[in-house]
């Protein structure tokens, strides 16, 4: 991943550029340093809703026109809201990227937020949340997060609480936009088929004149250390039981995060980085839970984040098996990695897997640009460049040490999804025909 240049415009906009000439494409990303982690009670979900409003357009690029302009050129565009950022991108044939550059410059300041469009989007977002609610894992992870974080903004889902989605106003949304969308609070990244000098000049032309704003005061409250295991139970109509166990872990700029990434690879297989994932059938928890027929699958999640977040393990429990059985088998494995070093062979495998997944994730200009912005947001873009070498430095002793430090019962939240066999069960295969 050599060849990245970093620039800062006089208004504070951070710009990262990387030329890549193998395909006639350019991917352009603008990331704002605002996400659900900074949302106050009463306004949960506001970052995500603002992201939706950005597709309603501006005077210069009305919503319906925007879409057409980009699609006509065969481009792809979208946006994502996370806990730590809100990001917009266009990936387009190289000779058409100017449209993406102009569009993002324009909507950094000129989005309209009309009352009618806010109201129409309210029901779309409520529908997005209701769609997610149809999945039992959504309910479970929402409760686990809320229990794990009492103080910090990571405690609520990115989509927000229904109560807030029903009551937030147009002015709430618009003020959020004005407070956080400004060049000095943004990271812009281009990767693809361009010349750096010309690209930088064009970015200066389009973005250089946007005035810097007052640096936003972020709502951020550190989570106090957890002292003792927390437990939550969700009971809803369904047929399947799930277990989720979440441990507090440090921010991803911390050295321990890389040691935990190796530990996760040993326990549940490597995490994909957006270029395709691989199987985990030789991982320790697969052998302990799936091969023993306690669960149908098991997965581990270690997300890179600005503030200390969670390392979570999720398993789908097979019919006839219990939460207690699965927990006991899982604890046995956790105790093993806390008490004994993993083998050198397991460590080597985890490192080779990381190299392969990293290679897969850097094949598309879009995923390279995303990772550069992502890393710059919580650390420096070099975090991404150094990702593999920092994993290479981890030792078997390091892995045991982080297991001891973080995978303690006192540091975790255990969540059970308990399916309620309601009226639905007996007529599960019935259908009503209403000709």
């Amino acid at each position, binding site marked *: 991943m050599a060849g990245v240049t970093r620039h800062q415009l006089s208004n504070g906009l951070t710009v990262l550029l990387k030329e890549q000439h193998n395909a006639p494409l350019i991917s352009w990303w603008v990331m704002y340093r605002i996400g659900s982690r900074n949302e106050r009670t009463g306004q949960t979900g506001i970052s995500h809703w603002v992201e939706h409003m950005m597709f309603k357009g501006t005077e210069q690029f009305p919503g319906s026109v925007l879409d057409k302009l980009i699609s006509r050129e065969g481009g792809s565009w979208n946006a994502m809201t996370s806990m730590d950022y809100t990001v917009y991108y266009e990936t387009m044939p190289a000779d058409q990227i100017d449209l993406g550059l102009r569009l993002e410059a324009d909507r950094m300041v000129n989005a309209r937020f009309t009352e009618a469009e806010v109201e129409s989007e309210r029901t779309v977002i409520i529908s997005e949340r209701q769609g997610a609610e149809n999945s039992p894992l959504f309910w479970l992870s929402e409760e686990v997060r809320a229990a794990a974080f009492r103080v910090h903004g990571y405690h609520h889902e990115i989509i927000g609480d229904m109560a807030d989605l029903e009551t937030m106003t147009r002015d709430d949304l618009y003020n959020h936009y004005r407070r956080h969308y400004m060049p000095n609070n943004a990271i812009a990244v281009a990767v693809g088929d361009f010349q750096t000098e010309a690209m930088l000049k064009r970015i200066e032309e389009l973005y250089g004149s946007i005035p810097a704003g007052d640096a936003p005061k972020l709502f951020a409250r550190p989570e106090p250390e957890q002292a003792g295991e927390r437990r939550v139970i969700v009971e809803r109509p369904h047929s399947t039981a799930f277990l989720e166990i979440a441990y507090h872990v440090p921010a991803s700029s911390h050295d321990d995060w890389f040691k935990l990434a190796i530990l996760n690879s040993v326990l549940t297989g490597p995490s994909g980085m957006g270029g395709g994932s691989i199987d985990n059938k030789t991982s320790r928890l697969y052998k302990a839970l799936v091969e023993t027929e306690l669960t149908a699958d098991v997965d581990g999640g270690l997300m890179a984040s600005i503030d200390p977040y969670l390392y979570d393990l999720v398993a789908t429990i097979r019919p006839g098996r219990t939460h207690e059985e699965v927990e006991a088998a899982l604890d046995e494995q956790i105790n093993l990695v806390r008490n004994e070093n993993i083998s050198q062979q397991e460590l080597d495998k985890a490192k080779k897997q990381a190299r*392969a997944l990293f290679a897969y994730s850097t094949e598309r200009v879009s995923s390279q640009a995303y990772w550069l912005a992502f890393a710059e947001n919580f650390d420096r873009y070099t975090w991404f460049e150094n990702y593999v070498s920092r994993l290479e430095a981890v030792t078997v002793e390091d892995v045991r040490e982080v297991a001891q430090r973080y995978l303690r019962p006192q540091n975790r939240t255990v969540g059970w999804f308990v399916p309620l066999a309601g009226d639905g069960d007996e007529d599960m295969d019935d259908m009503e025909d209403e000709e």
Partner: protein
Amino acid sequence: MSNGISLPGPHNITRVELENGIVVLVYENDAAQSVVIGGSLAAGSLYETPAQSGLAALTASALMRGTHSRDFNAIHTALEDIGADLDVGAGVHQTSFSGKALAEDLPTLIELLADVLRHPAFPQAPVERLRGEILTGLQYRQQDTRYRANRAFQEALYPDSHPYHYSSRGTLDTLPRLTTADLAQFHTRHYGPRGMVITIVGAVQAADAVSIVRQHLSDWRNPDQPPVPALPALRPPQETRRVSVPIPGKTQSDIVMGTIGPARKAEDYRAAALVNSVLGQFGMMGRIGDEVREKQGLAYYAYSGIEGGHGPGPWSVNAGVNPANVDKAVNSILHEIERIITEPVSAEDLSDNQSYFTGHLPLQLESNEGLAASIMHMETYQLGLDNLLLFRSRIMALRQEDLLAAARNYLNPQALIIAVAGPEA
């Protein structure tokens, strides 16, 4: 390549037919460090009876549970130690496989592929475990509104004499009854080189890749492979029929509505695909997205899709809406279908969508996966390896009246299947 896109075509795809009939396609792409494989065999649920529903799929999934020389753990250790991935799964017409590895590991990947395709052992205990995992997943799906609406739609659209009526995954009733002997028998009869295609894309030399495939697969023979069965004749719905699937505890309803669409080889497939784009794809999900999501705020997703595979797959609209808004959404969608068979699309709509189809190619072909999928598509449907080179002129040749004719050939708002799964009947 930086001055324009170099499309895969007969000039840069190496295509070799081995003596046993296996077609090998290789496209060299040095831009990435990885290699991707994709391919298929003539063995899908088309070859099973309704009582054995799920047989082809369980057979395909069970291949990687053990071979005569490698057990489950040996297969997965060989793959995971090098950060590689290999999957095999069955659909209606075919069993497909896909894999990915660092380019240096292609020989290992092909060796494992050949071993699981040719020498599976179907060991009892690992297959039982797999069956349990699949049944747990299927039980989960019984509570999934999207899955249930799709199943209800498909079952109402295709009669039980047609293979498309059934899910290739099988059912909670049929899966427990399949034995490992059934799997072995299905494998012996249907797996073989005839009709098999393998595509390799990545940082490899074409000659090397072909020789690796030759080494592991060219001596494979199966004289018993049956011919591809013909699909029974099909009549589209003659009137609209609504089906609902109540699932307690849900907060959203899923709607699937539509009819029978064109096969990929149909004369008017490209015109129909453009109609579909105008109706429910282009921009933020076409006219349906604009009406149902943007104007009325009824749904987070509302779009249309056209399958266009080996046979007459469905042409359908999907939407997830609040249960109170089901009728409103259905009526809006019906209105858009009515409009698209009544008025020709505007010259602007046509040109926007043509431009989208042709302009999107560089993005589709950026990755090894995208390249492999496009090459497989050309080979599978026998479109000719020059299909991508001719794509632009074929799309640009379509006129407004071609689109109207294609829309009328398939869509009729008075004769659709409308399936809804959600909290209330």
